[in-house]
């Protein structure tokens, strides 16, 4: 039996099992911590975790608001990542069309990708669309509506599978 509860009678359910759960609190038994919580192991936050806004009244669902994938890609030569998160590979779909393939996909292709062109040249427009639950594609054109290679930053929001 694991250590499962601190009740009015003190610590109960003590176990010396190596994988014992240290503490369990039911939904009616919150835990309040005034000091700093330091976690050196993996700290898993569930999809029900919320954060209170700076105003102190409204809350937001943490996992829903996190960026699920991002990459800076330069297509001046064969497209290559210059930094990324949750991107397994990049597909070179043609001039100005890098297509990041995600390591962990979204639950559907209904994500919200955003993009920024990093070039200093004026007139570049970059668009980005989902091509599947685990991939997205940006398209960069110049002021003549011609596809052009460029350095592009991409980010994706949505719900992971």
């Amino acid at each position: 039996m694991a250590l499962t509860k601190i009740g009015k009678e003190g610590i109960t359910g003590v176990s010396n099992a190596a994988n014992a759960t240290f503490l369990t609190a039911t939904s009616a038994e919150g835990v309040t911590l005034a000091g700093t919580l330091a976690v050196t192991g993996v700290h898993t936050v569930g999809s029900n975790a919320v954060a209170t806004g700076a105003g102190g009244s409204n809350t937001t669902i943490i996992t829903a608001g996190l960026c699920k994938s991002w990459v800076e890609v330069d297509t001046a030569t064969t497209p290559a990542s210059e930094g990324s998160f949750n991107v397994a590979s990049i597909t070179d779909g043609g001039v100005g069309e890098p297509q990041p393939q995600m390591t962990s996909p979204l639950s559907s292709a209904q994500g919200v990708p955003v993009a920024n062109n990093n070039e200093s040249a004026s007139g570049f427009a970059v668009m980005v669309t989902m091509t599947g639950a685990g991939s997205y594609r940006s398209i960069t054109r110049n002021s003549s509506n011609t596809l052009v290679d460029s350095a592009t930053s991409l980010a994706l929001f949505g719900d992971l599978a």
Partner: protein
Amino acid sequence: MTTNIIDKDGNSIVASDATVPSDRHFRNAWSLSGSTITEDLTASKLIFKEKVREARTPLLTAEDVVYMKALEDADTDAQAASVKKKKALRDAPAASAIANAANIGALKSAWDKDVLGDSPYA
């Protein structure tokens, strides 16, 4: 991180396994055969012509201004010179040097810098 390349026909190869052209000027004309990617000449010529059209657009607009000024000044010599320049710009995509180019190098050399300005392929 792995990069995959898709050619003009949708064929895919891991970039590190492929031999690719030295530049991306005709990237959308890339054609994969085995592990080698080459530039399809016919598709490259279409890309080249689009580049010519892109380059000539602002030149034609500027030449329209030149012609209007010559018209206002009743300068027939200037009008004729402007008409000649505009005709050269309109004819640029149909240059025989493009149609007759036997390889990518010749195609790049087909850029008429006297008409279109500096070559993007230099």
